[in-house]
């Protein structure tokens, strides 16, 4: 009977330049479904404790989900590896058309082992898998590499995952460019790719993806599309992507300004939807199979940075390379974001690192090179740092390319007061002083400082939860809400859903689509338990790596320094707040006081006796 899986994984051994396929285990599909679920389980099984993330022993994996490549709206895929930036489990999600192509080539996942003796790229055309010398393509930026490889394989329709110079040079927050304008951005998956001497993965496939019950599936997809069409939140994304979050975040006092010194920026509107509509946007583009079309494609046509094509500057990039650096020309922020994309640096971490460097320079801790000004508001200074981090041009670039945690450790204890990271991952652009639930989300996210594993801001600002208004500034009850969000999102990240379509598509529709696609009948509660299993599996990885309660914490600035102004003036997330929320969280999760899942929890989730994936190339 048809189901929407392709039935096999592709295992690639770069060290010996070989590959083979293995069947996708039934137990893995039953217990972990796909996407993040596969990644959580296989990283635990394939990467032993203590492996250097940049060594050949780490694996780099790409997983679509059971609904990816079908007409189910807005499905994505993920890259999973051990993060060189944090040392934790890492997944990084990307939309576009690369994820579906993995399935069209016939695979439920691509698992890359080892390290090529010389720079190579991988060309997967259905069953034909070639490891080709990268030659002079090594050294090019992500978009140049994309064009050169398509030309070399003579396949304009192939889809590419590629790294830029930052990935080649193993800058620890290097990304994987999943063309175009879609990035496996956070946590340094691009550095892992660079450490393997792997410039790109090109992929094209002619296989059909079939579903178990086409009629029921069509009905379920139409229902999901209708929900998206009726969703006010999805309509906001259609209108202006995430750019309208800039003025909103400023209004509610969560927008980082000058390396999070405060959380409100008097000039925020210039880089939000208003400014971007005026200076950048021309038309809309969609990821594969997505009716929302949140991409606002455009170009910088005027000013000193013209001319180049740019996607929308998403909220996180706008806030972290804009407000956070006191830069307010949307064309300049688009320019900095594009540089990050081309060289292959995570624009979020880049914004965090540059903010840290600007503050350190203003405090006299670091010295700007001759002719360079490192100060808030200085676009050239930011541009200089992006280049020097990507190309490892000087000691400062090399130091900062390791992220704020390592840079701060080298520069001295006093810089820890403004090194804005959790577990080494630079913070997202939602300052949590005033929104403690969001703080707890950062403390407990599996890959370090991340806003996408449970977005608490709305509840922190007084939205209703289960029909009850949530009280602002309270720590009580936050853990319970967050855990429900984390579980549901982790469960649907096994599909792999998009965070934006998820605002419209109901759990019932996700369940109906999955049931019709696979023939496994599930209901709307299914994703909660699945997500809880996945969340505990990633926690098992992190605990094995030594991450415990001491690491589930916030950067010192959020804890020690009260906000000097804005709607939450006088607020912070104190040690006592963190302590209370952490205990509450562990308690509800069924984890011990150090954050280790209790045996009874693992038993309940079937993680105590789960089979082990033993296949190697």
């Amino acid at each position: 009977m048809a189901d929407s899986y392709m039935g096999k994984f592709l295992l690639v051994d770069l060290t010996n330049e070989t590959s083979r396929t293995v069947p996708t285990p039934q137990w893995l599909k039953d217990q972990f479904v796909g996407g993040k679920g596969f990644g959580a389980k296989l990283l635990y099984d394939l990467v032993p404790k203590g492996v250097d993330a940049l060594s050949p022993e780490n694996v780099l994996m790409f997983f679509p989900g059971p609904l990816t490549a079908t007409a189910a709206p807005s499905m994505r895929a993920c890259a999973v590896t051990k993060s060189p930036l944090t040392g934790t489990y890492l997944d990084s999600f990307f939309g576009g058309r690369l994820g579906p192509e993995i399935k069209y080539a016939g695979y439920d996942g691509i698992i890359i082992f080892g390290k090529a003796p010389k720079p190579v790229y991988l060309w997967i055309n259905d069953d034909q898998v070639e490891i080709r010398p990268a030659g002079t393509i090594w050294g090019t930026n992500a978009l140049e590499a994309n064009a050169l490889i398509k030309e070399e394989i003579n396949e304009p329709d192939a889809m590419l995952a590629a790294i830029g110079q930052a990935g080649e040079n193993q800058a620890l927050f290097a990304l994987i460019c999943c063309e175009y304008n879609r990035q496996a951005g956070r946590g340094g998956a691009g550095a892992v790719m660079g450490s393997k001497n792997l410039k790109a993965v090109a992929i094209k496939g002619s296989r059909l993806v079939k579903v178990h019950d086409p009629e029921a599936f069509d009905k379920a997809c139409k229902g999901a599309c209708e929900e998206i069409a009726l969703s006010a939140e999805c309509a906001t994304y259609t209108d202006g992507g995430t750019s309208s979050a800039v003025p909103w975040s400023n209004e509610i006092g969560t927008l980082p300004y000058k390396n999070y010194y405060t959380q409100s920026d008097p000039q925020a509107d210039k880089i939000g939807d208003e400014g971007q509509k005026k200076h950048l946007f021309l038309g809309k583009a969609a990821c594969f199979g997505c009716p929302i079309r949140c991409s606002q494609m455009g170009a910088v046509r005027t000013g000193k940075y013209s001319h180049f094509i740019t996607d929308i500057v998403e909220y996180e990039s706008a806030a972290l390379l804009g407000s956070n650096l006191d830069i307010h020309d949307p064309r300049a922020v688009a320019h900095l974001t594009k540089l990050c994309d081309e060289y292959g640096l995570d624009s979020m971490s880049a914004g965090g690192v540059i903010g840290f460097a600007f503050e350190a320079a203003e405090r006299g801790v670091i010295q700007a090179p001759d002719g360079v000004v490192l100060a808030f508001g200085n676009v050239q200074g930011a541009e200089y740092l992006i280049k020097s981090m990507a190309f490892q041009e000087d000691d400062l670039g090399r130091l900062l390319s390791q992220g704020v945690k390592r840079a701060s450790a080298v520069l001295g204890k006093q810089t820890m007061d403004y090194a804005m990271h959790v577990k080494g991952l630079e913070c997202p652009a939602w300052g949590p002083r005033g929104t403690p639930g969001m703080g707890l989300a950062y403390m407990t996210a599996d890959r370090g400082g991340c806003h996408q594993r449970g977005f608490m801001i709305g509840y922190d600002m007084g939205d209703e939860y289960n029909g009850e208004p949530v009280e602002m500034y309270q720590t009580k009850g936050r853990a319970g809400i967050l855990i429900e969000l984390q579980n549901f999102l982790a469960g649907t990240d096994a599909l792999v859903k998009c965070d934006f379509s998820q605002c419209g598509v109901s759990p019932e529709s996700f369940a109906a689509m999955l049931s019709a696609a696979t023939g496994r009948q599930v209901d709307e509660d299914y994703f909660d338990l699945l997500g809880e299993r996945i969340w505990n599996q990633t926690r098992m990885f992190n605990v094995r790596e030594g991450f415990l309660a001491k690491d589930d914490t916030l950067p010192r600035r959020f804890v020690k320094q009260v906000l000097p102004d804005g709607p939450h003036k006088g607020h912070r997330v104190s040690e006592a707040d963190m302590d209370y929320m952490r205990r509450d969280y562990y308690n509800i999760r069924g984890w011990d006081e150090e954050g280790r899942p209790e045996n009874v929890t693992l038993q309940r989730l079937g993680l105590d006796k789960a089979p082990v994936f033993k296949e190697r190339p």
Partner: protein
Amino acid sequence: MAKTFFIKTNFDLCTGCSLCQLACSQRLLGGYNPHRALLRITHKAENLYHFPTVCNQCENAYCANVCPAKAISRDPETRALVVDRDKCIGCNMCRKYCPIEMVGVDPDLKKSVKCDLCGGDPACVAACPTGALELAYRVVPDEEEEEPNG
């Protein structure tokens, strides 16, 4: 006077989402793959532009003109050019001479496949969320009507 129906493309509204191609491949082959659909989207300039290409349902149809088996003829209702799979010999001559490569032999079916407007209610048009595809017709004067292979 007769009406030839065809799908009009509005590239300015196309977002490149491929929902049209998913609907098409599912109807044609019972599975999803945009590369196997009967319409194409060309993504240009880092996704700044998306050009959908569909069968023109030509008045002077080279695909039908060159078919040695006379397997391509007009649907009496829509005047769309449709392939008679019983007659098709899979020679792929139609693809060789179609200027926009909108017809050709499917690797699984071993027969030539092309857009038949789904009998008058195209699945791609129904799936398009933006109006980038719409069903249109042109009026063909009787005297200009020529039978393919005539």
